[in-house]
């Protein structure tokens, strides 16, 4: 690894000042599990690294009083798995984070760092998009709120602009009585990235008609992908096996997976259909 200068600001203002001063020569780091690896491989060679971990006030988890949970960007992924409020009010989120890598990596990596990394194979984005979560991007000039659905622009590319730091994530509860799952296809090892993954939230009425539904796939393209056509084929319709099959079949055309050692693009496309069908079926079963 090329050497660099490390900065450890203790306030956001100090961090913004350092980002301003060093511009493109600086990289912002939180848990470091992604950035340190990229620096070791010399994919990224910053002259300055601005570590955020000493900034106070960015690692709390609290209810916002309006049916959502506000998560500080520096909360570790392990916190999301173990925090009582997350487990109780956002069980899908706790379950999704528990499926990330290993306990050791979850103890190091942060919620905000994971999102700005923009890796389309990660587990949390499909779940956060399905729940309608948004992120707060702070800068010297103020802050803006961006839905997680709009955060990912391209392969490892996000809407986070120079001078901005992702400071918190707002995660709404799933509708009362709805069923929700995150399924992760892992043919290789239990700590791997998904070959394909699917988050599904289904809100059904007592007659098994679908009031609303969200289906979001991970590891299926250059960004997480919301399967809007598949959702439309079920929304306001009966949740029959036939309708679920027809809905899942459309996912093959919605995804655009990459060939890699986790499977060919064609194989992943087929698995995307299979796992969408399973996710929707399991979500229905887990509701009510």
């Amino acid at each position, binding site marked *: *690894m*090329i*050497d*660099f*200068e*490390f900065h*450890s600001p203790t306030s956001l203002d100090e961090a913004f000042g350092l980002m301003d001063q060093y511009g493109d020569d600086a990289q912002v*780091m939180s848990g*470091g*599990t992604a950035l*340190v*690896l990229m*620096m*070791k491989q010399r994919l990224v060679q910053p002259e300055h*690294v601005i*570590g955020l*971990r000493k900034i106070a006030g960015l690692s709390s988890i609290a209810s916002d009083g309006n049916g959502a949970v506000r998560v500080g960007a520096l909360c*570790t992924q*392990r916190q999301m798995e173990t925090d009582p409020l997350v487990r109780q009010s956002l069980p899908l989120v706790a379950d999704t984070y528990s499926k990330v*890598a*290993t*306990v*050791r*990596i979850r*103890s*190091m990596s942060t919620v905000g760092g994971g999102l700005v990394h923009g890796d389309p194979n990660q587990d949390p984005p499909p779940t956060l998009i399905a729940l309608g979560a948004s992120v707060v991007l702070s800068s010297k000039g103020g802050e803006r709120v961006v839905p997680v659905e709009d955060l990912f622009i391209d392969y490892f590319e996000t809407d986070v602009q120079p001078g901005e730091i992702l400071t918190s994530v707002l995660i709404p509860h799933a509708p009362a009585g709805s069923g929700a799952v995150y399924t992760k296809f892992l043919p290789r090892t*239990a*700590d791997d990235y998904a070959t394909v993954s699917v988050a599904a939230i289904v809100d059904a009425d007592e007659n098994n008609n679908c009031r609303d539904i969200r289906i979001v796939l991970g590891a299926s393209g250059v960004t997480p992908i919301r399967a809007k056509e598949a959702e439309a084929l079920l929304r306001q319709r009966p949740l029959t096996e036939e309708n679920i099959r027809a809905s899942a079949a459309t996912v093959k055309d919605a995804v655009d997976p990459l060939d890699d050692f986790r499977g060919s693009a064609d194989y992943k496309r087929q698995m995307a259909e299979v796992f969408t069908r399973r996710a929707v079926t399991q979500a229905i079963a887990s509701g009510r």
Partner: protein
Amino acid sequence: MDHRIRLKVNGADHDLEVPARRMLVDCLRYDLGLTGTKEGCSVGVCGACTVLVDGQMVASCITLAVTADGADITTVEGLAQDGKLHPVQQAFIDHGGFQCGICTPGQVITAKALLDVNPDPTEEEIKDWMMGNLCRCTGYYGILESVKNAARTSQEAGR
């Protein structure tokens, strides 16, 4: 660029001057001579370099030493107390928890971290937790037995 940091390792304070790129595993092994912690894959996957930083497991091979400034670190050398092995260490000896030994310090630290938060884990919980520590001798059954027995002896000792 060199940075001054202070680490508390196994209870002892150390003031060090390290380049920003120094990994914690190298700092422990070369700057402090604590060679119990091993480096395996160098990418955070194999678990050999696992140490505790403020009680949390980290992969010291992808942790910059400068980010551990001010932290309280426990390595395998810090587990034995007053000449008595930690129950996890004793269990690894008694139940064949290691063969070549390279992965063992990471396995032992990881097992200790499990028992710290879950003193009476089920077999599934042990497997799930230890999944991130690879043993290329494939001695997993011995490791599982060791962790189960360490939990049992710790519980009995606590009673």
